[in-house]
Structures are given as C-alpha cells and as structure tokens.
C-alpha cells in the first residue's frame, strides 16, 4: 500500500471517528452532568440529602464503570437496537459509547463538584440562596475548570472506546487499523493510524487543559 491508497481510506475513517466521538461526547455531557450533580446533591450532608436515591444512582454508575467497554457494548445490543433501530454503522455505536462514558463522566463531575469548598456553599446558604441557585450559581461555576478537565479526559477515553467500537462494525480509525493493519499486515497504514490517533488525543488534551486553565482563578 502506498500513500495514494491510504489517504482515501483515512479521510472517511477520521470523519466516522469524529462523528462517533462528537455525538457521544455531547450526549455524555448532557446526561452525565445532571447525574454527577445528583450524586452530590442527594448525598448525606448534601444540599438535599436522599441517601437511598444516592446509593441507587451510585450503584448504577458503578455497574457501568466496572464493565469493560467491549463487554458493555455487546451486552447492550438489544438496547441499541431499541434506540436507533440497528446495531451496525457509526450512528448505532453512539449509544454504547454514551452509555459507557456517562458513568465515567458523572464520577468526574462528582469529584469536581466536591472540590468546591463547603464554606462557599454555606456562605451562599447564609445569604438565603435556594438549592437551585446554589447548584447553578455556585457549584457549577466554581467547579467549571474541573468540569472542563473531566470532559477532556472523557473525550480522550471516548476516542479510545470508539476504536474498539470500530472493530464491531462502527467504522472509524480503529476499524481501519484492525482491518488493514492487523488482518492484512499493512504496516504503513498501521503506523499512520496510530500517529493520527496520537495527534488527535494530544490536540484534544492540550486544548482542554488550556481552556481549564483559562477558566481557573484560584
């Protein structure tokens, strides 16, 4: 294989990876953020202590986190079919990617929110702020740099997951590496894919770091 053979394969694969990671990141942020907030707010000593609910949520999150992604992906095939109507193709894999990343991100959200000082929360309570106001005006803005850092880690993890998803029919760079690099011993393509993944991860990480730093006023 030469460059002329590789490039036409590389571009669509990159787009597929971007689509999988992009959508699943968006959905993960939308679902994981409230879940992370719930883990903090409903905790014992939280703004609205509901220990039973918190334990239930924590359990679900732990189950999601303890399953290896490849197992999870296969285990939730029926659910994926229910949601998107099919289990192959890039769109179908947004579902397992999101399901796999939500618990992961929710824990990172939880950690970031716990970093917010108890004294700041208490000061807000002493000023008569409602629970909603405390979440929206204190917890989330104060934790923003940590949330961005957490989302960055999640995106990077999703790039990795998406490569695994590729091997089961999701397409993308992982699929390319397996089909050509592994099964047909195309060393050049293998190297190019690896470098490309490395660059993508590096760019995402340093962009995330930069944003987090810009937002931090500690």
């Amino acid at each position, binding site marked *: 294989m030469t460059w002329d053979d590789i490039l036409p394969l590389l571009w669509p694969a990159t787009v597929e990876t971007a689509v999988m990671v992009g959508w699943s990141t968006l959905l993960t942020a939308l679902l994981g953020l409230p879940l992370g907030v719930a883990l903090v707010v409903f905790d014992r000593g939280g703004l609205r202590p509901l220990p039973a609910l918190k334990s239930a949520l924590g359990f679900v999150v732990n189950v999601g986190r303890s399953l290896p992604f490849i197992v999870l992906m296969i285990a939730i095939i029926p659910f994926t079919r229910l949601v998107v109507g099919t289990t192959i193709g890039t769109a179908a894999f947004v579902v397992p990617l999101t399901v796999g990343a939500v618990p992961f991100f929710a824990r990172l959200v939880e950690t970031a929110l716990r970093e917010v000082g108890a004294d700041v929360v208490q*000061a*807000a309570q002493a000023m*008569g702020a409602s629970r909603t106001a405390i979440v929206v*005006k204190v917890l989330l803005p104060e934790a923003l740099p940590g949330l961005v850092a957490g989302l960055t880690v999640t995106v990077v993890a999703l790039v990795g997951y998406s490569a695994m998803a590729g091997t089961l029919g999701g397409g993308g760079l992982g699929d390319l590496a397996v089909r050509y690099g592994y099964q047909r011993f195309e060393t050049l393509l293998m190297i190019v894919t690896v470098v490309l993944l490395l660059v993508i991860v590096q760019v995402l990480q340093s962009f995330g770091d930069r944003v987090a730093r810009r937002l931090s*006023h500690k």
Partner: protein
Amino acid sequence: MIQASGLRKQYGDTVALDGVDLHVREGEIFGVLGRSGAGKSTLLRCVNLLERPTAGTVTVAGQDLTALRSAELNRARQRIGMIHQHFALLSSRTVAGNVAFPLEVMGVPRRERERRVAELLDLVGLQGRGKDRPNQLSGGQKQRVGIARALAGNPSVLLSDEATSALDPATTQSILALLKRLNAELGLTILLITHEMNVVKSVCDSVAIMAGGRIEESGSITGLIRTPGSRLTREIFPLPAPAPPGSVTLTFTGDPRQPVVSEVVRKFDVDLSILGGSIEDLAGGSVGRLRVALEGDDTAAALDHLRGAGLLVEVEGS
C-alpha cells in the same frame, strides 16, 4: 435584636450546645469568647439556622426563625449578613460579581444591582476594584469584599465567625475599625466570635464566655468588669498568680489620672506596694486593674474609702 433561648445542639453523642440563652441588644457589638470546641461556631450557625438546633428557639429582629419554612427562612436570611474566617468568596466571579450575588438571589434587577454594588464597594473602601478577581486581593481586601457582600441586603444583623483570625494585626485593626464604623453609621448589630482578646477589647460592648457548650458568663463589658471574680476581667488583665493572701485587687474605671491611691496612702497612713497591674483601653473607656499589698493600722478604713471612690475592691483569701 437576637434572642436565643434554651439552645441545644447535639451531633450524635457530642453535645455542642448545652442550653444556651443569648440576648444581643439592638445596635451593640456582642463578642463570644471561648476555647476551641466550646461551641462558638455552632452557636453562631444556629442564629441563622445553618444548623438547626436540637431544641430551643432563635428570634432575630422579632422573627422566630425556628418556626419558618425553607422559603421564608431564605428570605429572613437575606436580612442577616454573615462574614467568614476564610472569606468564602466565589473565585468564579469578580469582586463586583461577588457583591452582586446576594442581590441576584433577592431578585434585584440588573441596573439597581450595579448601582448598589458600586455603593457597597465604596462603603468598604474598595471603589474601583470591582473588576478584580478575589485572588488578586490581599486578605484584608478579601474580607472587605465579604463585608460588602454581607451588607447587600441591608441587614439589621451581622454575624462574624473569626473574621479577622486569618489576618495580620494591622489588617485586623483596620477591619475592626470598619466594623465599628458600620455599627455606628448604620446601627448594625454585630455578633462576633473570636478567640482574640484584642478584638473584644477594641470593639465589643458586651461579651459571652463559652465553655463546654454553655455560656459561663455574659453581659456588658463595663458590667462584667465591675463584677467580682469575673473571668473576663481576669482574661483582660492577667495578674501574676497565685495572689498572695491578703493582697488586694483594685479595678478602676473612668479617668485613670484620679489620684485615689496616693490619697488613700496619705489620708490613712498605710504602706502600699504594687504587685502587678495594667491599664487597658476598652470600647467603653479605659479600665485599670492593680494588685497591691496594704500595710498599716487602718487598712479596713482605707479599703472602704477606695470603695467609696467607686473602685471595685477584691481582697484575696479572706
């Protein structure tokens, strides 16, 4: 202005407050003193119900807070300012944003908010610093932001938990001067917790001394100074201990230049040696405390004369 009755607070087996009654009059600066773990913070946090007391009631500005439901309690809290040892400012907001926070919570419209923030920053001596971030300020400036924020809702009461403990002595004095000024100009009632006697001496009108979740002693400083055996007096005027039997401790308020002592020496022909003493400027005026040994034929008459001149006379070991 603040009336707490029969306050108890238990955390599991720990009794943090064990039946506390507190009465803070309108317009006074009331200090709470006590060792670490005495329950001072718990008491303060019960006043705005950050902690719900296990038993007892808290009334602030005529409103029984313990009877309020959460939304009403939030509204009542907007009229009770609070400042904190480590300032508790939001690092995600500018100085102006921090001061605007309680106004947002109260639903004050944007225009009005901006006007009020400028006014408050002016009041605490931070005009023009609104766009700064809290991490660009010194400790004293941060506490000024905390004070401006606490005053946003025009509170009648300000609660302060060790608000100067993280500051150096000069900055402490400037923050205390600011509190004193707000007390005088706005008629703000201040309940402050401290472990620094210096804070009590320079701003407080009244104090309570706490130990083991109870109030051991409380009242106006001038009143306590005139009470024999008061712990406050002993803390403010440390004298060498133990006092020799028969020695006399004299506490005098008012103009320290009155020649009462030399008068007694001349008039009753007694010898007087000074064992220890000091003069302190307290918020209510200057107070002196002197331990002396008296010798002579008519020491009893001499002591009577001193009592007659308005001094508090405590005779040791009699």
